């Protein structure tokens, strides 16, 4: 059953089209990542789903509600982890979790939650005194204090050090093991790859690719890149179709048949007595696929 169903979502800010026709369908228990650079429209989509922002057009259904019109009963079932930690600095960790927890019909126990996010030693510290990473972990705790069915995580680990990141990831895994649905936005490839069941890459307000982390952007069938340096020689007659020559003489060949292509290219070079300086053969990493998808790849 789809928990989130979005069709043809459009959002304009004045003249700017932040989201231009996005479709999403996310099932219960799924971890879905919206991956994209800053300003791609991820947060706008999430904020529309959370009910913080009104859409311009399209249809949106979350847990059967229209978030723009939904009220208390919708918000009792969702949890929101904001991009920036926004809590009263004067409160202690425990007080903040207590006061926000008191708003929900179901709630997690304060002590257990504090342990879960690894703030046990900071229980009675003022929020003012917490480090950036500790604040984000508190934010995470506040997002799940109401034991929500659906959790929105807007860039949950931005600014985390590697160990805090691992810890945040294990909390998300813990949520999924409890059957929660998670929608997260991130601009980290590895985060999407590690956490998500499915990933949608978003650029300039549109979904440019969608799939599991392994098949994203046709990665498993993607072309191999053969590159080398040419100086003073024409590349005419190079036995491959997809050849590009950059200004500094770097030649890139996209190949779906790397073994054969490499044989033909080296044969061509030997025939003409040309040295292929810096010859390399690479398969694109997930990062390359991602950069290409969002339009910031090699040709940018």
């Amino acid at each position, binding site marked *: 059953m789809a928990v989130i169903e979005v069709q043809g979502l459009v959002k304009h800010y004045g003249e700017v089209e932040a989201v231009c026709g996005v479709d999403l369908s996310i099932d219960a228990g799924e971890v879905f990542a919206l991956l994209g650079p800053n300003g791609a429209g991820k947060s706008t989509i999430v904020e529309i789903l959370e009910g*913080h922002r009104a859409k311009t057009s399209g249809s949106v259904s979350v847990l059967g509600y229209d978030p723009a019109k939904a009220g208390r009963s919708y918000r009792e079932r969702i949890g929101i982890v904001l991009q920036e930690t926004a809590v009263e600095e004067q409160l202690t960790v425990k007080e903040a979790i207590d006061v926000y927890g008191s708003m929900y019909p179901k709630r997690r126990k304060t002590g257990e939650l504090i342990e879960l996010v690894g703030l046990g030693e900071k229980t009675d510290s003022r929020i003012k005194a917490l480090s950036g990473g500790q604040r984000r972990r508190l934010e995470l705790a506040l997002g799940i204090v109401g034991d929500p069915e659906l959790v929105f995580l807007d860039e949950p680990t931005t600014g985390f050090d590697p160990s805090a990141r691992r810890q945040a990831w294990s909390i998300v895994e813990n949520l999924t093991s409890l059957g929660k649905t998670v929608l997260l936005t991130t601009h980290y490839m590895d985060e999407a790859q590690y956490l998500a069941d499915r990933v949608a890459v978003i650029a300039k307000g549109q979904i440019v690719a969608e799939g599991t982390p392994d098949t994203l952007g046709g990665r498993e069938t993607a072309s191999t890149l053969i590159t080398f340096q040419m100086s003073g020689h024409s590349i005419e007659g190079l036995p491959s179709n997809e050849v590009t020559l950059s200004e500094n003489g770097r030649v890139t060949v996209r190949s779906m048949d790397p073994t054969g292509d490499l044989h033909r290219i080296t044969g061509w070079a030997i025939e003409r007595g040309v040295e292929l300086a810096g010859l390399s053969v690479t398969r694109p990493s997930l990062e390359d696929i991602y950069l290409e998808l969002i339009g910031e790849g090699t040709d940018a």
Partner: protein
Amino acid sequence: MPDRPSTFFLLWSQTKYQNKIFFRNPMAAFFTLFFPLMIFVVFSLVFGNQEIGYLGVTTAQYYAPSMAVFAAVSATYTNLAVTTAYQRDRGILKRVRGTPLPPAVYLGGKIISAIMIAAMAVLIMMTIGVVFYGVQVYASTLASAAVTFIVGVASFAALGLLIAAVVSSGESATAVTNATLLPLSFFSGVFIVPSDDAPAWLDAVANFFPLKHFVEPFVAAFSPLTVGAGWDWGSLGYMVLWGVIAVVLAIRFFKWEAPVGRGGKSRRRKKDATVT
């Protein structure tokens, strides 16, 4: 939802939480509770605590209630406007909006907390006046003093939220509340009693805004010259009018998020736009 927390419980827990925040913010606590008290003490020293000829009461008998009103207005109008606007700047209002807490309960908790702090400020001021400065309290006018207080702080709380609703940031809330409260306090007889020679327009300004309609009846309730129970229905009605208009406009214009171009998030968004 059978286990949904009751509105009463939520309102009470919000009120407690707002009180806690206030008392842990030394600046707010100082300016609301201590500053008016300081002015009162200074005035009593400077003018000497003797009968002021044209008022017919002692310095303390006038300034204890007038500075009590100033403290009450600071606690409601200034504090609500400034803290609410700052909370919006920092995304706290947005967070609250994303929880099941009904918005009216959140704002209700803020208002009740502000009124409790105002009541405390008034009690401290009057107690010090009575104990150390010989201020007289009259049983016959206590009821009208209490009603004037309640109507006054409720109206000024509404006005504070209206300011929070229309300003773009915490800084501008501070500027607007100070730029309105301080001059009005001078015109309305909080700090000084305008003489009969004051220009007519000054009188008109004072009469238009609600502060004078709070100070005059409250001070009168502690004046030995007041005859009867001290009810000033005109002033009470006028404050109610201001309060109702403020509530309507505050609801109309209230924003839970800082406007675009303000606050960290939108700044970042702007920067991104130039990158892509």
